[in-house]
């Protein structure tokens, strides 16, 4: 059973580290980016078959924030990159507007439960055997 990787875009080092650890423990291969710019760079560099199954995206980031990253992705010509599901991961209070505008996005409100993280990611990446057996 093949597992798709997860791209985590988060400027806060601690959260990034923790999320990556949590996903690794669950068996997901992960890639990390500190802002939108780096995330985009990664997506263009990685071979097509290694594109992540979903992107965990923080909104408030330096260089290129989450909103800008989404805009870029929507303008993307490469369909496979464009179609990668995005999971918003934010501590912002006023996300309701954004959710209304883009109901197709999954949202993880910080601080979130570990279970929530796993169930969202599970939707887009294959269920790892490890968890199933556990």
């Amino acid at each position, binding site marked *: 059973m093949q597992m798709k990787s997860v791209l985590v875009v988060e400027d806060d080092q601690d*959260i990034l580290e923790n999320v990556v650890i949590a996903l690794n423990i669950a068996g997901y291969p992960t890639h990390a980016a500190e802002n939108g710019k780096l995330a985009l760079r990664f997506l263009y560099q990685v071979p097509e078959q290694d594109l992540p199954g979903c992107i965990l995206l923080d909104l408030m980031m330096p260089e290129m924030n989450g909103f800008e990253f989404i805009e870029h992705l929507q303008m993307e010509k490469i369909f496979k990159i464009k179609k990668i599901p995005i999971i918003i991961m934010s*501590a912002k209070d*006023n996300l309701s507007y954004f959710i209304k505008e883009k109901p197709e996005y999954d949202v993880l409100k910080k601080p979130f439960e*570990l279970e929530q993280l796993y169930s969202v990611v599970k939707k887009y990446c294959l269920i790892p055997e490890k968890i199933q057996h556990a």
Partner: protein
Amino acid sequence: MLFQFISLFHFSPSPFFSSMRSFLQFGVAVSFIGFAIGVLKNRSKISKLTDSYNDLKKNHLDLIQKMSSEDCSLENLNLNFCKEITDCLSNKKDLQSAYDSLKTILNYSPDLILIKDSHLRLIYANPSALKIKNQSLEEVIGKTAIDLFGDEGKVFFEKDLGVIKSKKPQHIEEEITVQGYGKKTFLSNKFPLKDLEGKIIGLVCIAKDITERKKLEKELKRSEEKYRKLFELLPIDVQVWDVFYNEKKEVQSSTLSEANPKALKTWGKTLKEVQGKTLNEIFSDHSMTDYYRSTIELMMKKNNVNEIEGYFEPLDLYHRSISIPFGEKFINTIIDITQLKKATLLAQQQNLQLSAIFQSVSHGIIVFDMKGNLILQNQSLEKILYHRRDDLLSQSLHELSEIFLVQTSNGAKISPEDWPVSKVLKGQSIKNSTIKAIHKKTGKELHLNLSGEPIFGPDKKQTHALMIVVDITQEINQKKRLRESGALFSALVNNIPQHAWMCNSHSITIWYNEKFFSYTQVPLEKLQTQGWAILLHPNYCESALKKWLRHFNQGLPWEDTLPLRAHDGTYRWFLCRAHPIMDLTGNITQWFGTNTDVTDQLLLQEKLEKAIQARAEFLSIASHELKTPLTSLKIQNQLLFSDLKAKPNSTYSHQQVLSIAIRTEKQINRLQGLVDDMLDIARIRSGNLPLKKQPMSLSDLVYEISERMNPQFIQAGAPIPKLHLCLSAWGNWDKLRLDQVISNLLINAIRYGNKKPVRIELKSDEKTCHLIVEDHGIGIPEEKQNSIFNPFERTIDADSVSGLGLGLFITQAIVLAHQGRISVKSTPGTGSTFTIELPQHVPLFDPTERPDHVF
């Protein structure tokens, strides 16, 4: 003698005497009877007459003798007469007496008696006849009328001739010129003399002088005509009634005998319709009948002239009747006085009205006679002067001056000679002369407005002085109060901090207060000619005027916030309000407005709004910032938790537990830092940022911090900052707070430094330390440089950078708490330089002992 005289008539059957008898029957008898009565009345006269009668007898006998012997012609002329005389002679005594009587009669008769023969020649004329031409009997005997009177006599002659021819007596009126008198009219009775065979032998003419009677008759006729005319033309109704009595001498009925045209016109009838008719026949109306009947009965009983005034309702006629009982007639005259009566009534009514007006007008009215005595006053005057009528009436000016002290409105005393009424008494008109009258007893003050007019009689001489008195005490007092309140008002409006202004009903500014002028320096005239819009900021002019006009036209209170130009060309915001001022009838006469300077208030409000917005933003950011370390903590904890759950028997190495503890510690520190920052904010806001001051070296602190933060620079990809530290920077400061300040500046330098070198310099002069942190990063836009020290400010978009955005605010607050200063110089794209100045204190030990560090 009377007996004799009468017997003479009975005795003599001759035609002469029979003729005489008829003659006597014809009126002339009156004179004979009068004569006889006169004789009876006077005995002495009778005796005289007896004497003369005896003489006459004698003469007569002589005459007879003469007639028989000598006077043949007479005898020839009338033989029959002689015969008669002869017969008479036989009865001499009686004849003598008859003859004497006749002679007397002839001689004394005032009538003219003429006897003519058949040829109409005069045989005899009595003395009265002779008087006509003052001739003697001898002169006229044998002459005809033509001989005697010429043309005039011809008429007599013809008439005489007519009598003789007709052989019948005739009564003829004749005119004869009498000597010394002129024409006289005579009524002549002419009859022929016949002999016994009936042959006409002559003519007797007895003429009575009726000149006077004729005159009287003429006059009577004339006057009768006059009265008839008067009767007919009289403009008053005249009715003449025939009154009929019954046996008890009561009025039984009355019929109309005469009525003049005016009376007929009143009744609307013709004379024919009413003449000879009774009351019931004339009037269909019972009231009229009754009225006339009762009047007639009453009048006839009283039998004197009476005058009644009455009213005929059916004719709407006021009348005055003068009724005159006149024998068996009753004359009633009616004068139509309807007009007069109505005019009188009207005059009475007008008089009543005038008197009512006089009494009820609110103005006091007084009339003085020429001596200066008050003779008339109305009720209003009493009210004004609080005086009963009797007290003032008939008082002279001097007496009045005892009751009232009269002054000018300025309080100068006026003596009665100079009172307004005295001027009017001298013939002047006075208009609106204002005086003050003080009632001496009560001390009550009255302000009176006096107008006066002299009144002139028909002879154009002044008779009275009329004064109109108006009590203006209340007005005067009100004016006084108004003046006082006006002064109060102007004091008020010139001292209030607002601009105050007034405009009239044409929206033209008519007044503004001193504050208004000192702000605008626009003269009132300019405002009036160019309008107040010149004060408005051009951007707001149109909408503001529109709104003002809408309120102005509807008379609604107006309120607007507008920028008004000051005299120096700057604008400030004003809250402008205006209220309409109405008069008693509800018409707007003026508007009163105020302009309140709300610029500061508006700025404050803007600040407040900004602060509120910033606080909301801060709360959002703060929650975001707090949630970030919490997220990490949660994931760590849940991972550990799920791991412990999954592997109940597993043991963790020392290394693993340490790693978990370090990561947990890190998040807890972050949380603590955030909470500290927020506490600081609260302290700074409340103005209570406590400092724990201690002598310290700033250079040591800077060195310490830079050492501590070097790893972060390296982690951010930037070179380690270069330090230029002056070691003499010593002071009494709060070390922890300054640590916060420097750390903040360095964190910012890392965050915004764009990985370029950062320079830290510490300078010191005698009084001040200068700490300069210079980066070469993105820099700060010029418009943001002033606000970066405000709370919750970030130079970059909120979504790009995390952090509370309180760093520089807290930094500044700490510096300020140390009586220092913080400033920034920045060029976008080139970098920023932050400078902190701190007041330096005398160091406790000599800092020169230690050399400067240069890194």
